[in-house]
């Protein structure tokens, strides 16, 4: 397994002008994600997490600093990095199957083959029998799982997840967290997860970056010392508790 960073963000800053004032959203952030690594970004809301993902995806360019994909700074990132937005982004006029195959359709891949592949994956995503349903007929959890399936079917090198379970109730959230763990272990795709749930980050990821409130800076980088495969039982592990403590301390130190 190569240790070269698949994604590397170096000293990246980004400001927005809001009504004439300059708002610094991301300030001198550096982070990395290696091949097949699960990386989490934790931070209070408004600290620039979504902005950071937009930058990495190539939807906008940083004011300063650089973002490299496989060490290449010049390459076009749009189209190569999968993005699951904060809201599911399902198209209300498309049925589920047409929604999850949107990426391959845009990429002009062999659609019938992709449809087969999608249908075969529906049970794993808890969506079997719903292929002809419209998004409004699905529950919140189902919509998020559909959005993730849509992202994975794009078969891009990296997957960015922006608070995928943020809008769900606590119970559904936990189920989805355990489910995502299984998905990642199966697909082994490089993932970058934005969340503000510390347990979620610890259970899922190999490495965690804690960000400060606006402007977003990296307050703490921590390698999660838990073995894989992971399971919910690790929540009571002493290693888990100490990592959780250091993350919470970092978050508290920079609070307000």
């Amino acid at each position, binding site marked *: 397994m190569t240790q070269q960073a698949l994604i590397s963000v170096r000293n990246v800053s980004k400001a927005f002008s809001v009504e004439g004032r300059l708002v610094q959203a991301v300030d001198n952030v550096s982070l990395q994600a290696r091949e097949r690594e699960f990386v989490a970004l934790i931070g209070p809301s408004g600290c620039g997490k979504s902005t950071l993902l*937009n930058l990495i*995806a*190539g*939807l906008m360019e940083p004011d300063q600093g650089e973002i490299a994909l496989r060490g290449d700074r010049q390459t076009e990132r*749009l*189209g*190569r*990095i*999968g*993005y699951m*937005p*904060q*809201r599911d*982004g399902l*198209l*209300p*006029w*498309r049925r589920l199957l047409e929604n999850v195959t*949107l*990426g391959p*359709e*845009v*990429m002009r891949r062999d659609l019938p083959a992709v449809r087969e592949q999608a249908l075969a994956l529906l049970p794993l995503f808890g969506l079997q029998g719903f292929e002809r349903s*419209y*998004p*409004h*007929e699905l529950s919140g959890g189902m919509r998020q799982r559909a959005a993730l399936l849509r992202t994975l079917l*794009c078969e891009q090198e990296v997957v960015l997840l922006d608070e995928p379970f943020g809008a769900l109730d606590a119970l559904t959230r936990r189920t989805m967290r355990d489910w995502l763990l299984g998905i990642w272990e199966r697909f082994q795709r490089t993932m970058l997860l934005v969340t503000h749930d510390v347990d979620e980050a610890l259970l899922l990821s190999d490495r965690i970056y804690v960000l400060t409130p606006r402007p977003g800076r990296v307050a703490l980088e921590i390698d999660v010392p838990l073995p894989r495969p992971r399971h919910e039982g690790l929540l009571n592990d002493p290693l888990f508790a100490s990592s959780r403590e250091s993350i919470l301390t970092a978050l508290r130190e920079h609070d307000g």
Partner: protein
Amino acid sequence: MSPRRLRRFGPPLALGMALLLLWQAATLYLNIQDWLLPSPLQILQAGWQARGVMGPHVWQTIQETVIGFALALLAGLTLGMSIDYSHWLRRALYPLLVLSQTVPVIAIAPLLVIWFGYGILPKVLVVGLVCFFPIVVSTADGLRSADPDQIALLRTMGASRSDVFRLIRLPGALPSVFTGIKVGITYSVVGAIMGEWVGSSRGLGVFMLRATNAFRTDWVFVSIAITAALSVLLFGLVNLVERILLGWYYASRRTEEWAEVS
């Protein structure tokens, strides 16, 4: 009729029938003269008697309306998309289009007759002029209101500008476009009749003028009834097409309504 339909169409039908009955009773008991206000039954009778004479007139008006509306649809969609396509076009076209709506069509109609004669063309153009504006506005607004998150999502899939248009903006704009089409189509028949008033030898408008000059008030009412029926029919057709194309839209709206009441 299903209970839901009954609930929807029942009240307007009942009110309409009641008003007609009142009208019938009033003409009967207040002794109103026929040439002032004929009774609904007399109008019905007159319509039946005149059906042979009226046929070609009605057909002419239908043709003008349909061709004119097709033209309005084509022009409206094209202009709406052009406005959406470039900022420059939006700034240049929008004010002119709004200005064009301040000129009464009835004032332009005689000019059209001078330029294009007494054939079908000037009437078709009047219908087009009356109907195109709501379609332009609703198309432009619908395209503009696309969800930026969905557009961003598509760009991360490597979509081109035309992909975004085809897969997100156009389908997302359709509900708005149909609103414009429905506003337009309700004006269309009246537009054709206005066009006929300025100069024509056939059509519902011509028939209406002749009936007025002959004091055949019952025939005037027949023409009015047919005008209304045609408008409602066309509106219903558009509605039907919309329901077929935009089933998802109505279904999702119904879910939202439910979410609100529950």
